[in-house]
């Protein structure tokens, strides 16, 4: 696809999501309560958006991932939350 074709297909959708993220960060700032590892992980992942070159999606996914390599002793429940608590 040409750049113009990508923009025609995806610019408005990406613009919408960008504003949603900005509004989410504002909402989080207005809220009260304890700091949370998910909020920090999100801010860390945002840095990859500004990087040059390909592979931003993979970098964001990696930065939200458990970086360890050994199995855990016991499954702590069943669910996942989207960011690694550390």
């Amino acid at each position, binding site marked *: 696809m040409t750049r113009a074709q990508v923009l025609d297909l995806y610019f408005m959708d990406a613009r919408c999501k960008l504003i949603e993220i900005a509004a989410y960060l504002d909402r989080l700032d207005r809220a009260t309560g304890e700091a949370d590892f998910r909020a920090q992980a999100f801010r860390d992942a945002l840095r990859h958006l500004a990087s040059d070159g390909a592979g931003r999606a*993979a970098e964001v996914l990696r930065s939200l*991932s458990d970086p360890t390599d050994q199995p855990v002793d*016991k499954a702590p429940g069943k669910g*996942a939350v989207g*960011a690694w608590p550390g």
Partner: protein
Amino acid sequence: MRYIEPHGHMVSRTTDDYLDMVTAGCAAVCEPAFWAGFDRGTASGFRDYFAQLTEHEPKRAARYGLPHFCWLCINPKESEDVGLARDVIATIPEFLSRPTVLGIGEIGLNKNSKNELRVLEMHVDLAARHDQLILVHTPHLEDKLKGTRLILDVLRADSRIKPGRVLIDHVEEHTVRAVLDRGHWAGMTLYPISKCTPARAVDILDVNGTERLWMNSACDWGESVPLAVPRTALEMRRRGWSASAIDRVVYQNPVRFLSQCPNFRLPADA
């Protein structure tokens, strides 16, 4: 358009979904054994589920002219109880000779625990002993990268396993390359929030090519879209893919992988 739904948990769906899928061009649906949303307490509960997958659900799909196949296992979400898993795995061989069984799946990991790994190894051994295809579930979200690496190591450690007879599902941008580089097939799951969106799935095809890749809806009892595969085919068309290139991804690729199992047969005019 014709397509295969290689991963749909149809016992959780309505007959309306069957009707919509067939209307959209679905030529076959494959149903991996899954977690019911609650833990089944006994091996006999699983035996009933395997009977549902191999007897009842193919009949329900047949009412819409849709061939239905299945995969058998105890899901990674229920693998923390190794004793129960051992009992369930012992019941699977009696179902393997049923005419619509494709292999062992979806096995894998959920929270990357030691017990889950043990049960994964037991399933891989079962598949090797009975010469079955394998369908692997990779963990969700933050657990996927680590879980995919652990799964790849388990598969490589068993010399009886041929990589081309294993499909590793739910890949995303950060895991697809490792799966393909080991010689396995890779599945992209199209979900509204987690896993891949249609646009990202087509990106992954643009970057990695179409060899040994398929797409599925993994529709189940949670937020999921039974028509996600044909909708992604529409996305491909919007991006200029030819009808024959789309057909290769949504129909010919699944047929190629699944045809390694002699039970996977489609009506001649599909």
